[in-house]
């Protein structure tokens, strides 16, 4: 199967490899410039199909005609009616692609990857602007591709997106590649305080706790997320967790603390992948560890 040398992506000495593995899915979070590099490195491989949300299709063909065309071109024997049904495209099958929304085009990209005769699928930010339906459908497409023996690699710059796809993800930075496992940390309550001190460039900001949507740690720094803005705070995640224990905050994942008042819903994508949807205009999805699934539900309802 196709392999990519990590040293070629990060442009430093490194012994590691990123590999496509048959019948499995590898999820890697990496900065945008590395994504670009991986695309360049796989561009000319005849075994790698690149799945992109922004792919464009023949605008004058209808959804159904387009799938028929793929079937013929790749010589695949897929049942078009079944696919239309599985991917919720039946109402749109007679609609020309030029008139379809981005949501439908994104689904076409998922299906295209399934129908392609190439063994490896490199999905680049596949959940970019994806609706909840499309996230479910992407999981479905991955399952099908695994069954077909394809090797799927998802690369994305968004850690949240990566955790939506899989419980265990890899992270690539200039030090190389490492596994990010979802694991437990001990916890104990204490302390009184209703504001957090955060920094934004040269200012120090005091943030009201009820404004915080969630807190994440990434690359060794801890960020507070408040309606599309991120601020760095000085303490680490465990300290912050202890500080916020009594204020309806909950450590839902190794790298995330969520404000329970901002939780809108919990989505179960597959056996082991859960996400918390934040009650904000973006409906941000942050990962939820499998082991915390029951506990958070208890915290969220009236006792």
């Amino acid at each position: 199967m196709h392999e990519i040398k990590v040293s070629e992506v990060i442009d430093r000495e490194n012994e590691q490899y990123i590999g496509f593995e048959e019948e499995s899915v590898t999820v890697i979070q990496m900065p945008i410039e590395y994504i670009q590099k991986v695309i360049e490195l796989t561009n000319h491989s005849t075994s790698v199909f690149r799945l992109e949300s922004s792919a464009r299709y023949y605008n004058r063909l209808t959804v159904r005609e387009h799938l028929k065309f793929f079937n013929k071109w790749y010589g695949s024997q897929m049942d078009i009616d079944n696919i239309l049904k599985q991917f919720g495209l039946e109402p749109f099958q007679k609609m020309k692609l030029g008139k379809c929304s981005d949501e439908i085009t994104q689904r076409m990209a998922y299906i295209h990857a399934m129908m392609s005769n190439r063994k490896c699928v490199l999905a680049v930010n596949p959940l970019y602007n994806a609706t909840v339906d499309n996230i479910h459908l992407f999981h479905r497409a991955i399952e099908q591709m695994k069954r077909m023996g394809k090797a799927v690699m998802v690369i994305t710059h968004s850690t949240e997106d990566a955790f939506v796809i899989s419980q265990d993800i890899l992270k690539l930075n200039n030090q190389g590649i490492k596994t990010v496992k979802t694991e437990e940390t001990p916890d104990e309550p204490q302390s009184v305080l209703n504001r957090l001190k955060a920094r934004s460039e040269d200012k120090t900001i005091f943030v009201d706790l009820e404004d915080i949507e969630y807190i994440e740690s990434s690359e060794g720094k801890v960020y507070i997320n408040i309606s599309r803005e991120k601020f760095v705070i000085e303490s680490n995640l465990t300290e912050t967790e202890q500080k916020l224990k009594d204020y309806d905050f909950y450590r839902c994942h190794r790298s995330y603390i969520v404000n329970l008042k901002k939780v809108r819903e919990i989505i179960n994508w597959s056996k082991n992948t859960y996400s918390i949807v934040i009650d904000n205009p973006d409906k941000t999805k942050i990962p939820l560890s499998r082991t915390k699934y029951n506990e958070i539900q208890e915290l969220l309802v009236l006792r």
Partner: protein
Amino acid sequence: MNTGRIMAIFEKDIKEFTRNMMLFTTILLPIFLAFMYSRMGEEALPPMLVYLIVGVAFSAILCSGIMTMMAEENEKRTLRGLVQSPASMMDILIGKSLVVILMTAASLTLAFLIMNTGVEWSIATIVGLVLLALFFLNVGIAVGLTVDSVATTSVYLLPVMFIFGFTPMVELVVSEPDHFVRQIADYLPLYQNIAIHEGETVVPLLILAVWTLVSFLYVAWAFRKRMSDERK
């Protein structure tokens, strides 16, 4: 070559061609011209006009059709997921060529039925027309392989149309038969077909063959360049 893939692209592009008004209306052009010229008189049309219509059909449908279709694929990068080897690129070109050949044939047949041409369907005439068609098709494919947007095709298409498609028009612009422009025009492909119509065979066919050969070299160069660009 893979017949399944050629058919897939053929069916897809027939749909695209007939739904794209810019391409589909070109079919009407030769028919409309034939209709207009045939109203001018009862007797057979002068060969210059007959071959002007042939030139219009070949340049406006055959050449521009495939050029535009390829340019649209390049512009939207729709081929990226489909083409993985020179062979699959060949399938795409053949499938698209079949579409424009079919459309040109349909349009030209109707145009010939409308007007009183006085064309004798000798072997030389037919070979001449086939060579001319290949010339225009190759030019269209070669340009289509190299341009990256539909808008830039017109830069190439206009000279092709005026020099090779509307050649007989030169008689209206330059009236002295001995002018050097007219002497050069005598060697352009369309005038060879007119010469064949008037009874000559060997020399005009040879000149036409040379034009077609040159067009094959052009398309081969464009194909290589494209495939090496894709690998970069």
